[in-house]
Each structure stands twice: as C-alpha cells, then as structure tokens.
C-alpha cells in the first residue's frame, strides 16, 4: 500500500464510539436491564485457606425474595488430572476459581451465590449461608511459598518429586551460557523483586444473563472476548455453545484482566434455577480482592559482556506468583526478558508459584515488564561498568533482522534499532537536568499475536458500508478499521460504520488481547473489502457488458480500463448499490482466518525523575516513548496506547502494590490505598512513533498495545539511580522505601 498517497490511513479520524462515551450514552454491562430481572451476589471466603467441610444454604433459601442459590455443585467439575486448556486458561483451574470446590484458596474466593429480588436481600441471604470451614495454614509471598516447610495449597502439585507450590517451569536455552560467561570481561548479577499490581480498569466486572425456559441463554457482559465468554461459560455450565449468545457490552477498560470470566457461569446457573434474568455487578472491593492482578516476582539476572560492549551471555531466573491456581505469565517474563538483544548464549527460566491470593489474570504484556525490569536494570549497571552510554550499549547489542531469539524465532525485518537511534537523536536525551533530577532509559519487547478473526463487510442499499468484526474495541480499533475500509474503497470515512458482532452474528474471533486486534482484524477486513471490490467490478462489467478484468476500482467508483477507458461514465458505489438487485443481489463479503505473521513489538523509553530526598517522593517529570508501530493506522490511538502503557508502568514502579494484613487479607482493596497514579501525578508523556512496516501484514501493522508497559519499570529505576546515586532492587519505590534506603545510606 502506497503510504504517501494514503487518504484515510494515518488520519486522526473521529472515534465512532467517542460521542456516546463522552455523553454517557455508551451502554456498559452494568447498564443492561430486563423485565423480571433479579440480582445475584457472591458469598466469599473469610479465610485465605480453608477446607470446605459443608455448606448449608437452607436459611438463605428460606428468606423471602431469594430465588436461587448456587454452590460449586452447580458448576461443572474438571478433575485436576486432565488438562482442559482454553486459550491461556485451563478449565481445571477456572472451575475452581469461579466457585471454590474442595477448598477456599484465598480471602474473597467465591463459595456460594444467591439471586434475589433486590441486592439487599441477596446480600442478606449470603449472610445466612452457613459454611463449615477447616481453617488451614496459608502462605502469600513467593519466598514463603517455596520454602520446604510451606503450607501446600494443592496435594496434586509436585515439583521434583515432592509436594510443592511450584506449579510449573519454563525454560529457554540458546548456545552455552557457561562458555559465554567465560568469555566475558564484565559480569553483573543482581536480584529484584516486584509486588502484585492490578490492571485497575475503571469498570468493575458486570453481567446480565437470561436463561429462557427452552435453555437458550443470552449473556450481556463486559469482557475482552464474547467468544471466550461463550466457550468458558459453556464448559462451566454444560450448555452447548450453540445455545449461548454472548453479547459484548461497551467495555470500560480491561488491560488483560477481562480475558477471563468470574460472574457469567454463576449468573447462568442462578438464572437457570430461578427462571429469571440475573444481573451481577462487582464492587471495587470485590475487584481488588478476587479478580486477577498480575504476579509479584522474584528474579535474578546475570549478564556478561566483553570490554567492547558486546554481550556474550545472559541468564535469568524468574519466580512469578500465580495466585491460588496455576498459570502465572512465566512465558512473558522468561521469554521477553532478553528478546530485544542479539545474545549468543542465553538461559532463561521461569517458575510458576501458587499461593493464597487471588488467581492472576493477564495484564498488558503479561510477565514481560517483570523480565525487562531485571534485565534493563542490569544493563544499566553494565553500561556504567563498561563506561558506555546506556543507549549505545543497547544499540550495539540490538536484535535485528536475522537475529535468533532465545524464545525461538528468527526475526524478520524489525524496527528495534530504529527506536534506539531515534531516542539517541531526540532532544530529550541531551536536555539538561535540574537539581535532584536523574535520567534513565530502558527497552522492551512483546510477542504480539495473530490468531482467529472474522469480518463481514456489507454494502448498504444506499451505497454506504457496514463492517462487522468480532473483537471488543478497547483501544480504538473501530476507528482504525473504518480508516482502512475507507482507504481501500476510496470513500469518505464517515460512510463506513464499524460494529462489533455478538457470538451469533459474526464468526469466531479470538479475544482482544496480545495486541492482536488491529493486526488480525485489518487482515480479514482487507480481504473482505477486496472481495467486495471484485463484486463491484463485476457488477459494473455486467452493466457495461464488458469483461470484469477491464474494470478498475478507483476513488470509490468503477471505471472502464484498458481499451475500454473512457467508453462509459464511471459508476459510483452508490449507483452500483442501487442496481445491486438487478445485477446479482446484495453486495458484501466475509472472511474468516487464523492470521499469522504478527511480528514482535519493540520500544525504547527515556525517563526523567525528580526526587524529594527529605520525603522520599519520586516524581516523573519528563517521559518520551519510542516505538515501532509498523504502520500507525490511526496515530492518535497508537499514541494513546503508548501513553497508557507508560502511565501504568509509572504506577507499578512508584506507587502500586497489594498490601496484606496479618490475616492474609488484602489490606488496601480500594483506589484510596491502592495507589494508581492520578492525572496530576504524571507529566505529558511524549511519543515518537516509528514505522518499519511489518512485511507480513497488508498495511504493515504491528501490535502496539502492550510493549509500552514493558520498559517503564527499569527506565524509572535507572533514572532514580541517576538522581540519587543509589540503586533500588525492588518495587514500588514508594516514599517510605526511598527514605529508608537514603537514610540507610547516610547512616
């Protein structure tokens, strides 16, 4: 596609969902209502670890207004010895997460649910449920969970032959690290820790479910994938997928945290038992206690380089906290950690550790920030030890086309070096620093994903266009799809409507995650539009009585070409649509594909901080993010993704963390004490989009949503070191921690 002459691709068009969102008309899951609707509430475990001996629901059931009560008995059981994977989840763990089965595994774990005519009655009924618990010893932190005498969460988990809380291990090897380190002139090895952080989406999980007497089930819910909702709900309730229609509501943020379900199967069973539509809406406290944050981590990274700055060996060990059930993002940590660099000898290992806290869910580039934090901080020390500029060190070792990565691939054309070069050349990198200020840099990688997508492109009778795809739009994908459709058809952007279909109206589409949506849906939309253009040329050919090959499509109209050029006046989309019935029927096409070729995303960040050494406060005062977007179909939303990722990274680095009390309960389950940055905490985050087109995509798109959260943790840590001359090896760098470290240094 000729980038220079693009009319719509690359434009900052108005977001189709924008007016509804700013005026409050957008319909989120919690806005849905139905006649006869009742309310569901969940009873949650008051203990972080307890065997459930029995549950007596009789008093709750007898309460006037209560219409149904559900426990684990009503959810399909998946025995622990047979894996049933679905995407990144496993139904063995999902069925135990949505409703505690043998044991309550964390404080806040659902143990029963009630549906009643009002929320108050449902809450009251929950209080009347009697659960007989055998309280068990519990463990939360990784270092405690992997001790030999730790309380064991699951008898069926064994590691190296013994009962263990280590649920899994993942290893990447390239070359021979021992030999590599032997060649190194400088070797730096450090250990790091990060705390669990939550995605912090503004909209709590919510759904409305209706199971009709004939078993037909409709789900309105907030998720990152209506097909994921349908598949998981089907497995957990035993209702066939063909009887479930999952309708995606407008989504108020997900950041990975809505690639999993909590409420839907419970609401389905409550609706099935009561015969009434059931609505469930989590409170913020429930979101903080019982939905997926990402892992805490403990890592050790060792990197060796020759005196000239060439990295010869790298080794990393990453322990990630999975929460109560297996499945932490060790692939992201161990796989992405060294992926930006061309290193001949790599050994990277991840361990999945269960403990008595809520099960983790995906969070923007799951695991990758944890790996990059350790690696990019060690690289900073390595640059210092070598007397090299930290960006020059990275540039010297940057992965390029043909580099073999430890996690498997040989890279095609990538734009990583370009991001570093842009950072080196940017005025920010040379700008003078003020008093108590420091500057840090870091890079990052994220896999990106392709996968299944479906699209349908229809020409309306009046000659406009409706595009339907199957992906909830979180980052502006509808606007980007409209840009592409308008470009390909040569019509005004405002003549294209982009909708998100439900599971009954569009073909299977994998969820909105892995930075895949625009990559994949642009592919199927492009192919669909190409089919539509073929149809339009055929219709014009028929009208003119010439061969379809003698018709070209240009600027929204069919033109006779070649020998026929000029023989007939052009036929516009509107004219062809008006004649559709006579020339062969409705005009439209759909394409369904398992897309491949989503190449990795790379980023380089520069961060300036200012420290108040008396109060221990670190503030980010300037930030510039450089990223290879492949092709920015809608630059505004690419920038939005970059800024959003940085903002979340700043929170992770400086202020966000789960705090537990002595009873193993989350002690800060609110936005007051779980400190996400507010607007005034952040500087304007500057962005530089680099476009090295992905050779495997029709428009050159690479995923952009996740990699921007990968570098900030280290960029900020390195900047704090530059400001204070003290290195921090654990996050968050909260004021008490910073002050204690500085006082320790002074003493």
């Amino acid at each position, binding site marked *: 596609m000729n980038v220079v002459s693009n009319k719509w691709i690359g434009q900052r068009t108005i977001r189709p969902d924008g007016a509804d969102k700013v005026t409050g008309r957008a319909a989120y899951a919690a806005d849905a209502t139905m006649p006869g609707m009742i309310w569901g509430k969940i009873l949650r475990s008051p203990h972080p670890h307890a065997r459930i001996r029995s549950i007596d629901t009789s008093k709750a059931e007898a309460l006037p207004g209560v219409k149904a009560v559900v426990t684990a008995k009503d959810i399909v059981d998946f025995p622990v010895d047979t894996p049933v994977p679905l995407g990144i989840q496993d139904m063995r763990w999902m069925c135990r997460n949505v409703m505690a089965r043998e044991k309550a595994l964390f404080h806040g774990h659902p143990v029963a649910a009630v549906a009643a005519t009002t929320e108050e009655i449902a809450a009251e009924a929950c209080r009347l449920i009697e659960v007989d618990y055998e309280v068990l010893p519990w463990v939360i932190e990784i270092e405690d969970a992997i001790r030999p005498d730790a309380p064991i969460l699951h008898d069926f988990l064994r590691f190296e032959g013994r009962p263990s809380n280590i649920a899994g291990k993942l290893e990447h090897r390239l070359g021979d690290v021992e030999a590599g380190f032997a060649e190194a002139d400088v070797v730096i090895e450090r250990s790091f820790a990060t705390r669990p952080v939550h995605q912090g989406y503004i909209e709590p999980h919510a759904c409305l479910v209706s199971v009709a007497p004939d078993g037909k089930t409709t789900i309105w819910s907030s998720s990152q994938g209506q097909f994921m909702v349908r598949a998981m709900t089907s497995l957990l309730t035993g209702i066939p997928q063909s009887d479930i229609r999952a309708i995606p509501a407008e989504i108020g943020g997900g950041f990975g945290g809505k690639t999993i379900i909590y409420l839907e199967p419970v609401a389905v069973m409550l609706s099935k038992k009561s015969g009434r539509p059931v609505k469930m809406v989590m409170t913020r406290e429930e979101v903080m206690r019982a939905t997926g944050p990402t892992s805490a981590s403990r890592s050790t990274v060792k990197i060796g380089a020759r005196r000239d700055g060439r990295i010869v060996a790298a080794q990393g060990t990453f322990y990630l906290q999975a929460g109560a059930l297996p499945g932490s993002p060790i692939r992201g940590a161990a796989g992405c950690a060294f992926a930006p660099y061309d290193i001949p000898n790599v050994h990277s290992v991840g361990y999945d550790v269960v403990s008595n806290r809520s099960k983790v869910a995906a969070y923007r580039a799951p695991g990758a920030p944890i790996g990059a934090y350790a690696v990019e901080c060690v690289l900073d020390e390595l640059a210092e030890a070598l007397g090299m500029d930290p960006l020059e060190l990275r540039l010297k070792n940057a992965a390029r086309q043909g580099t073999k990565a430890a996690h498997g691939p040989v890279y095609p054309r990538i734009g990583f070096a370009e991001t570093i070069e842009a950072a080196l050349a940017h005025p920010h990198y040379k700008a003078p620093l003020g008093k108590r200020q420091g500057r840090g840099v870091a890079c990052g990688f994220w896999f990106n994903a392709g996968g299944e997508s479906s699209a349908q492109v229809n020409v309306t009778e009046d000659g406009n266009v409706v595009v339907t795809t199957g992906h909830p739009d979180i980052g502006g994908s509808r606007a980007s799809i409209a840009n592409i459709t308008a470009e390909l058809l040569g019509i005004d952007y405002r003549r294209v409507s982009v909708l998100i279909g439900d599971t009954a109206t569009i073909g299977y589409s994998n969820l909105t995650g892995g930075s895949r949506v625009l990559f994949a849906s642009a592919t199927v939309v492009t192919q669909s539009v190409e089919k539509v253009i073929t149809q339009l040329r055929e219709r014009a050919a028929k009208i003119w009585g010439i061969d379809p090959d003698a018709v070209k499509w240009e600027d929204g109209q069919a033109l006779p070409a070649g020998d026929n050029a000029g023989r007939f006046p052009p036929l516009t989309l509107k004219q062809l649509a008006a004649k559709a019935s006579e020339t062969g029927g409705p005009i439209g096409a759909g394409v369904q594909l398992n897309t491949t070729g989503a190449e990795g995303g790379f980023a380089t960040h520069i961060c300036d901080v200012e420290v108040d050494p*008396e109060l221990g406060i670190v503030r980010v005062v300037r930030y510039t993010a450089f990223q290879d977007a492949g092709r920015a179909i809608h630059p505004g939303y690419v920038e939005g993704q970059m800024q959003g990722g940085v903002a979340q990274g700043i929170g992770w680095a400086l202020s966000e963390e789960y705090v537990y009390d002595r009873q193993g309960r989350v002690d800060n389950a609110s936005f007051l004490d779980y400190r996400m940055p507010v607007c005034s905490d952040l500087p304007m985050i500057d962005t530089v989009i680099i476009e090295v087109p992905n050779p495997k995509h029709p428009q050159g798109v690479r995923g952009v949503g996740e990699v921007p959260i990968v570098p900030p943790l280290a960029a900020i840590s390195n900047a704090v070191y530059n400001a204070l001359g003290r290195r921090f090896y654990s996050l968050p760098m909260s004021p008490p921690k910073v002050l204690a470290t500085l006082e320790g240094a002074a003493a």
Partner: protein
Amino acid sequence: MADIQYLAPRTLDEAVGAYAAAAGAARILAGGTDLLVQMRSGAVRPGVIIDIKKIAELTRIEETPDGGFRIGAAVTGAALAEHPRFGKVWPGVLEAVNLIGSKQVQGRASPGGNLCNASPAADSVPALVAAGATVTVQGPNGRREMPVEAVPAGPGRTSLAPGEIVVRFTLPPRPAGSGDAYLRMIPRTEMDIAVVGCGVNLTLRDGAVTAARVSLGAVAPTVLLVEDAAKALIGSRLEEAALEAAAAACRAACRPINDKRGTIAYRTRVAGVLLKRAAAIAAERAGRA
C-alpha cells in the same frame, strides 16, 4: 434493609431535639462525603439522618468586628474559598480545608464533618488547631465552647456528648505580622489521605517569633498540639537551630503506627521535615501580613 428516615430541620433546636430523641440511631449529615461512603460500605447503618445544611447558622461565614471569624460547621470548602477575606487572613486554614478531596468533594465537604468524622488524618483539623480555633457545640443541655483539639477522642470517636452538634468554629483576631500554613505528605499529588499533616501558625515582630502554635495530624490517634515545638520557635528568628529543635519536638511528639500508608520511622521523620517547610511558608506570609 431497614428504612432510613431523612430530616432536614430549619433550626438548631429542632435538630438537637431530633438528634437526642433518636437516641443513638441518628447521624448528622453535613456534606455526606464521609457519611455516605461509610453507609455504602455498610460501616454505619443509621435509622435517622439529620441534614444540618438547612440551618442558617451552620452555613454562615461571619467576620466579627474585632477581626475574628465565625465559620458555620457545615460551610463547604468551596464556599469558604469564595469568601473575600477569609483566605487573606487564614491562608493556612483555607488551604487545609481546600485540600480535602477534589473539586466535586469541595462542593459538599465541611470542616465540621472533617472534625466530627474524627479521622486522625483529617486535613483541616491540624490547621484549625494551629490557628487556635474553638468550636461551639449545642446539645440537649445547651451550648458550650471548647478548643478544636478537645473534640477528637480517638480514631472515629469524639468527645461530643450524646445529642451534641458542632455549630461553628471561631477563629481569633489576628495580630499584625501573623501567618499560617498547612502541609501534608501524600504519596500522590491529590486524591489521597495524609500520611503526616502539619499546621504552623506564627506571629513575628521585627523578624522574631512572638507567638507560635504547631500541630500534627496522622501521627497519633488524634491531632496533636505540639507545645514544645512552639516553645522552640518562640523568641527565635527561625534560625536553623530553632527549626531543628522544633522539628525534634515534633518527632518526639509522634506516636504513629505502622500501617499500609506509612511506617513509624517514616512518619516520624516526615513530621520534622514538614514542620520546617510549613514554618518557612508561615513566616513568609507573616512577613507580608
């Protein structure tokens, strides 16, 4: 869920009568920015709510002929900010009241609610204590007057007798050369709760401190009036030694806890730092006054 009765009396006598009659089942509602949050979370379940915002005396701001101020207990932060004179005379008290929450919260939140909610971290309370403010309280047994620092009795508890309502705050007349300031440490830049708060109120003549009051919030179960810190400042010209002595007095006065918001060591250190910074601002304002 039981029904809640909502009353909005026009007079203080009616309010006191209804409050006493409800015998513990009632809650006073000013801006509701604490009360409604607590009701939503289930922490309090009142049977009767008595809205005091319709009572003229509780929403009035008056400057007395001698230059003092009477602030109704239910006056909102936004209304106080709009008063043409108050912020010029008591910039520290005003900034403390205006630190509460956000623009939206400011339209509702009152200093009376801030005091009676009895959070050790309440922002306006240390500033009012440093200002030497008193409160007028009315209950079934009539009116009484007491210093602001006598109201909080512990986290969530006040020394108010059953049926007593805070009517207004009285701030004393200002001698020439006076200035006040309030600073708080919060991890974020706004929408947060004080980890330490410090109020300083100074009167200077010819560069020397002739009167001082120092208070601390969030470092003990209740607001602290730190008399030793004031003593260290009085008679000084705010030299580093005097400031350090006052900071040391603040640190010594702290009786904080370790919690999710801060450690004992951190809060204690920061109390001294904020004292020095607040004293510098108060002195600068006193010089201009």
